[in-house]
C-alpha cells in the first residue's frame, strides 16, 4: 500500500466518520449549537485554570518538558533499535508480540486472538489506538461485543455518539445530558437517578461490575512501553483500567510503534509531565505497569500488538515527525480557541483539536476533504505549542501540511478559498516554506498569550495588519463575525 494511495488508504488506516464534511462545514454546525458551546467552554475553562496551577507548582517544568522532547526524539531517531529491544523483552517475560501494518491488519489480529479464546465479549479500557483503528466496529462484525468501561467512553457508547476529546470523550455532554443517556440506554439505571456526578458514577460502577468480574478477555491501549525492560504502562483514574488489565485471563494491548521510552528511568519524566498536563493532577489516581505475565497475578496470556498505521510514513516527514512525540494528554485541545468553539466532532477523527489537525492528515493521508481541510483548522495562535508537554511545534507542522494539502490534496472549494485569501504565499511550496520559517520565528516574538504583536525587519508588514504569521483561508474570527456567530447563512 502506497503512502499516497488516496482514499483507499483512509479506509485501511483510520475510518473517517461516515459522511464527514470538511472542517469548515462541520465547525459551522457545531458553532451554531449553543448548548455544545456552553458545555465546552465550561469544561475547557475549568481544566485550563487547574492545569496552569499544576504546572506552576513545578519550577523545573521547562526542564522536564525539554527532557520529554529529547527522549521522544531519541526514540524516533532509533525506532528500529528500540522496537526490537521491546519485542525481545516482552517475549522473554512471557508475552507475545504481533505487528500490524495498518488498522485492518491490527483488527484482524485482535479478532483472531479473541476468537481463539472462544469468547464473544471483551472489556475495554479507553485507548486512542483502538479508537483510531475502529476496533469495536471490526469486532462487532466478527460477532464480538466490546464493552467500553471508561465512564466517558460508556457515555459515548450508550449515547450512540462519537468521542469529541482525547481525554474526556464525552466533554460535549453535561451532567443532565449524561443522566438522560443513562436513563434511556442503561438497562439497570437506578430509578430516580439525578444528575449529581457522584450518583452518575455510582450508576456506572454498578452497571459494569458484573462485566468486570466475568470478563475473560481485556483489551487496552498503552501509554508507555519501556524498551529495556519490556514493561507496559497504563495511566487512568477510575479503576476500570486496573480491572481490565488484571481480572481477565487474556489481555490484548494495542500500541502505536512510537509509544516507546528507552529505559525505566525515563518514566520519571513522563509520570510528571502527563498527569499535570492532562487532568491537571499531581498524579492520576491509578497507574498500572506490567511486564509480560506474572504467575498467580493477572492474565495468563498477554499479547502486544505493535501498530504502524501511517506512523512510519509520518516518521519519513522531517517536519511532521514531531507529531509522533505526542503523549495524548489533550492539553492542546483545552487551550485551543478553535477547539473550544467548534468542538471535537468537527475534526472528523478520534484525534480532535490541534494535535488531531496534524496527526489525522498524516496518518490517513490528505486524500479526503476533511483531512485536506484539517491543517486549516487553526488560527496559528501558538497556544497549543506552549501547552504541549513534549514541545510539539503544532503551528509549524500545520503550515507544513498546508503546503502538502495544496500540492496533493483534492481540489475543492477550500483550496480555492485558501488561494483567494492567502494569495501568493500559499501558491508556491517554496514561499510556504519561507512563511513556515517565519511562523516559527514569529513564535519567538510571541507575547505571553501566544499572539504575535510585531515581527522584526521585512516581516513587520505582516504584523501590521494581523497578529498571526500565516493567513488561514478565513480566520475563525472573521468567519464568526461575518456569519454572526454561525447563526446566519454563509453566502459562500
Amino acid at each position, binding site marked *: 500500500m502506497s503512502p499516497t494511495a488516496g482514499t483507499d488508504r483512509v479506509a485501511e488506516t483510520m475510518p473517517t466518520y461516515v459522511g464527514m464534511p470538511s472542517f469548515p462545514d462541520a465547525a459551522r454546525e457545531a458553532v451554531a449549537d449553543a448548548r455544545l458551546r456552553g458545555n465546552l467552554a465550561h469544561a475547557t475553562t475549568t481544566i485550563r485554570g487547574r492545569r496552569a496551577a499544576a504546572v506552576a507548582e513545578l519550577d523545573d517544568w521547562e526542564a522536564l518538558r525539554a527532557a520529554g522532547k529529547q527522549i521522544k526524539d531519541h526514540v524516533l531517531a532509533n525506532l528500529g533499535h528500540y522496537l526490537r529491544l521491546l519485542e525481545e523483552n516482552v517475549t522473554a517475560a512471557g508475552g507475545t508480540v504481533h505487528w500490524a501494518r495498518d488498522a485492518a491488519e491490527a483488527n484482524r489480529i485482535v479478532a483472531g486472538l479473541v476468537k481463539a479464546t472462544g469468547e464473544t465479549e471483551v472489556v475495554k479500557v479507553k485507548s486512542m489506538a483502538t479508537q483510531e483503528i475502529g476496533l469495536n466496529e471490526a469486532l462487532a462484525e466478527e460477532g464480538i461485543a466490546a464493552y467500553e468501561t471508561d465512564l466517558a467512553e460508556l457515555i459515548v457508547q450508550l449515547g450512540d455518539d462519537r468521542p469529541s476529546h482525547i481525554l474526556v470523550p464525552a466533554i460535549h455532554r453535561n451532567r443532565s445530558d449524561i443522566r438522560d443517556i443513562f436513563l434511556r440506554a442503561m438497562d439497570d439505571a437506578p430509578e430516580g437517578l439525578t444528575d449529581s456526578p457522584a450518583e452518575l458514577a455510582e450508576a456506572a460502577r454498578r452497571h459494569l461490575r458484573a462485566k468486570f468480574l466475568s470478563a475473560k478477555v481485556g483489551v487496552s491501549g498503552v501509554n508507555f512501553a519501556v524498551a529495556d525492560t519490556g514493561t507496559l504502562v497504563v495511566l487512568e483514574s477510575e479503576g476500570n483500567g486496573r480491572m481490565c488489565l488484571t481480572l481477565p485471563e487474556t489481555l490484548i494491548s494495542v500500541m502505536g510503534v512510537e509509544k516507546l521510552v528507552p529505559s525505566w528511568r525515563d*518514566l520519571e*519524566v513522563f509520570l510528571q509531565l502527563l498527569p499535570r498536563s492532562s487532568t491537571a493532577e499531581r498524579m492520576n489516581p491509578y497507574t498500572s505497569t506490567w511486564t509480560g505475565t506474572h504467575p498467580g497475578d493477572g492474565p495468563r496470556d498477554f499479547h502486544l500488538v505493535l501498530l504502524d498505521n501511517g506512523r512510519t510514513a509520518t516518521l519519513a516527514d522531517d517536519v511532521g515527525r514531531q507529531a509522533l512525540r505526542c503523549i495524548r494528554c489533550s492539553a492542546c485541545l483545552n487551550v485551543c480557541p478553535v477547539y473550544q468553539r467548534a468542538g471535537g466532532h468537527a475534526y472528523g477523527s478520534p484525534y480532535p483539536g490541534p494535535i488531531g489537525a496534524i496527526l489525522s492528515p498524516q496518518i490517513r493521508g490528505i486524500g479526503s476533504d476533511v483531512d485536506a481541510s484539517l491543517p486549516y483548522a487553526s488560527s496559528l495562535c501558538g497556544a497549543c505549542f506552549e501547552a504541549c508537554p513534549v514541545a510539539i511545534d503544532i503551528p509549524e507542522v500545520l503550515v507544513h501540511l498546508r503546503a502538502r494539502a495544496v500540492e496533493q490534496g483534492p481540489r475543492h472549494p477550500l483550496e480555492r478559498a485558501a488561494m483567494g485569501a492567502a494569495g501568493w504565499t500559499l501558491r508556491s511550496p517554496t514561499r510556504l516554506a519561507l512563511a513556515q520559517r517565519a511562523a516559527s520565528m514569529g513564535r519567538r516574538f510571541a507575547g505571553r498569550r501566544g499572539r504575535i504583536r510585531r515581527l522584526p525587519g521585512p516581516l513587520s508588514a505582516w504584523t501590521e495588519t494581523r497578529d498571526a504569521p500565516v493567513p488561514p483561508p478565513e480566520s475563525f474570527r472573521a468567519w464568526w463575525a461575518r456569519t454572526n456567530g454561525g447563526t446566519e447563512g454563509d453566502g459562500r
Partner: protein
Amino acid sequence: MSAREEILGRIERVVPTRPAADVAADYARIDRGYLRRHHDDGVLALFAERVADYRAAVVRVPEHELPAAIAERLAARPGEHGIASGLPEEWTAATAAPLVRDPAADALDGLAGAVTGCAAAIAETGTIVLDHGPGQGPRALSLVPDYHLIVVRAAQVFPDVPEALERLDPSRPLTFVSGPSATSDIELSRVEGVHGPRTLEVLIAE
C-alpha cells in the same frame, strides 16, 4: 514479507539502525536538567498533606500503636477484610474484625475491604506504590473490595518521583495509587469513587 519485516524495513529506510553503543551514547546525552526532588524537608508531612488532598484519610501513628490503629479502622467497617500472606502478624494482632487470609478471586467482591502494605511512596505527588509482594497480595485484592487500608512505613516514603522509581523493580507488577478511584469525565471535575476502592485510608507508621 511479514508485517514485522515490512514495518522495520520502512523504519530502516528513514532512520537506519546504528550500533548499540552509538545509541547508548546518544541516550546518555539527553539533558536531564530537571530536579531529582522538589522538597528536601518535611517529607512525611508533605506526603500526608498530598494524600489528604485526594480526599483520602491519612493518619500518622507511632509504630507501636499501629495494631490499635488498624483495629479501630476496620471496626468502623463491618464485614470481612482480606489480607495477604506476608502481612506482619503484629499489625492485625489487635483486630477483632474477621480477616480472610489470601481470599479466593471469587470471594473478593464479597469483602468489605482489604489491608495491605506497600513497596514505596512518593511525597510530592501523594502516591503509594504496591509491587504486590508479601503482605500486598495479587493486584485484585486491593482493587475489587470497596475499601483499601494501606500501611506505609516512614522509611518507604521518598521525596519525589525519580527517587521512588529507582527503588522499584519493573519486573514485578506495580500499581501506583494516588487517592481513591476518581473520574474527571463529568464536566472535567474530579469526582471520587468509580470502579476501584471508593475509600482509601493510609496509616503512616513512624
